């Protein structure tokens, strides 16, 4: 029983990481209907920058702030350098462009920091908390807390602020939004920046419990996307729940013997979901994908 509980707790931590990354996908998708294949790499960039700042001798909080802002800058650059010049390209070119951006981010990171594995110290110590015989790493509470905070802030942002509503309008009908005086380009730029920021928040938050390295973005990005699709793409709470489901399933599977195929679960899930539940598990959103 303790074992099962431990798996669930670990799974929830892992899952909230996926959820945090999924939020970045949802944010960019909601604003511009682009699936940003570079989302996982934005997260990796955030983690790497934070590590570099810390290595340079600056204190951890500074590293965290610089890392997250670095992700935002990378998001802005991604939009300015690759998405905007492509104009009204369809999904196929945008898949290729964001994939290209993912490779560029990875390449730049390798150029500067190589292919090594790095990590950050935990935000508030490494001493594990014992609870009902289960071990909890303090950093996982940070990850959980951040995920919850981001959901609350994003929900407020989109439901109650003028900018948030302008972004939604841009996503629903760019032409009508333009007529209403919304600068749609700036809204999309903002969203890619926010997406980069969110990705980097995830990257910095998980760097103390999972290594960050140039290739990590691919797998984490894919899993974040799986989580977002599980939650019915477009829905912030759904994305987090999707992440938790994926995290717990993975941890259970590897805990009970199939650890070699831990990474395959996300891909199996995505195939099953796309094929059988095209609207996602929670899918209330009217997203057309078939």
């Amino acid at each position, binding site marked *: 029983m303790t074992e099962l509980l431990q798996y669930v707790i670990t799974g929830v931590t892992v899952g909230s990481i996926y959820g945090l990354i999924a939020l970045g996908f949802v944010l960019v998708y909601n604003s511009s209907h682009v*699936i940003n294949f570079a989302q996982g790499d934005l997260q990796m960039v955030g983690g790497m920058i934070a590590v570099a700042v810390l290595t340079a001798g600056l204190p951890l909080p500074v590293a965290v702030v610089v890392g997250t802002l670095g992700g935002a800058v990378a998001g802005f650059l991604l939009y300015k350098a690759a998405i905007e010049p492509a104009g009204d390209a369809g999904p196929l070119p945008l*898949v290729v462009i964001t994939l290209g951006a993912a490779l560029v981010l990875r390449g730049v990171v390798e*150029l500067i920091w190589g292919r090594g594995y790095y990590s950050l110290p935990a935000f508030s110590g490494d001493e594990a908390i014992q609870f009902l015989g289960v071990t909890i790493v303090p950093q996982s509470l940070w990850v959980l807390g951040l995920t919850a905070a981001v959901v609350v802030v994003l929900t407020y942002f989109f439901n109650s602020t003028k900018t948030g509503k302008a972004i939604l309008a841009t996503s629903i009908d760019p032409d009508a939004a333009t007529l209403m005086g919304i600068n749609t380009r700036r809204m999309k730029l903002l969203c890619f920046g926010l997406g980069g920021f969110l990705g980097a928040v995830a990257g910095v938050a998980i760097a103390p419990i999972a290594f960050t390295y140039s290739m990590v973005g691919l797998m984490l990005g894919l899993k974040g996307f799986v989580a977002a699709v599980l939650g019915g793409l477009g829905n912030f709470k759904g994305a987090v729940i999707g992440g938790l489901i994926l995290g717990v399933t993975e941890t259970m599977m590897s805990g009970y013997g199939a650890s070699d195929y831990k990474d395959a679960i996300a891909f199996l899930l995505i195939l099953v979901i*796309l094929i059988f539940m095209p609207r996602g598990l929670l899918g209330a959103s009217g997203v057309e994908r078939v």
Partner: protein
Amino acid sequence: MTNMNEAVAPAQSAPIATPPALKLKADSLRRLGPVVALGLAIALVPLIAGSAYHMHMAVMIGIHAVIAISLNLLVGYAGQISLGHAGFMAIGAYGTAILSARYGWPPLLGLGVSSIAAGLLAFAVGRPILRLKGYYLAMATLGLGMIIYLVISNEVWLTGGPDGMSLSVLTVFGIELDSAGKWYWIVGAILLLTYWMARNLVDAPIGRALRALEGPDALAASAGIDISWNKVRIFAVSAALTALMGGVGALYSGFITPKSADFMQSIELILMVILGGMGSVFGAVVGAGIVTMLPQVLTSLEHYESLVYGVILILVMVFMPKGLVPTTAHLIRKFRR
């Protein structure tokens, strides 16, 4: 898949068997010109190749060109992206290796069976997957490719895992195929045949139907096209051909690792199609040539291949979304007018 083998006999005689009528001469020239030019190029390369290494590169380009042509039928003509084609390549490579090295099958039988198996797998998963569009199709094919990669990496008892697997030298009709020079002619023949068949295919009614799949579903359906069936069968054919060349590549190199199935390999294949030109058979060959030679040309940049690939992908998509060959052809036409 099977039409590869059926095709061999009539394909070689067909251009002679159908002597072009006088009024069709220009048309035949336009159609057969590139095939003849490619044939000449294939015949000439060994004369100018300075070393065994050049021949090795030529063989690799040939293998990739066939895959790029088959992938282009799916991506460039039918407009259906696949980010998992390296998985099919690996099914061909590992299928051939496992059936011959572990189970003692004749290698060519193993090659045929694994190509057909890849085609059948694509056929089975194609119907549900190809209903998806755009990003979702990209993700689903990527997932499929990753699952194949993970199986190959993890089933060590069967595939050798990350350490890879060796294949013994293939002997056909008493000839040991132990050098790039010998493989070159085999791969060259397959390439020429594939090129000719792909050109025929896109010129035929089915080629138009494939191009119509790129547009809205309502359009294709209103023209009487069975969308699902046509997507699925071109996916299956493309998968089988890709597996075939994966197997040929394995037999040629004699050693395979799971790396050949990974995501970067799928990206390279897509890059060949996009760079050379979506919806251009010749473009696929050009794209395969460039992407295969790129790491060699940029040897000093070998650690930065992802950066270089990434930049190329973005630049091509932004500045010439149709790819090198169609863009160049367009410029030439414009210049002539």
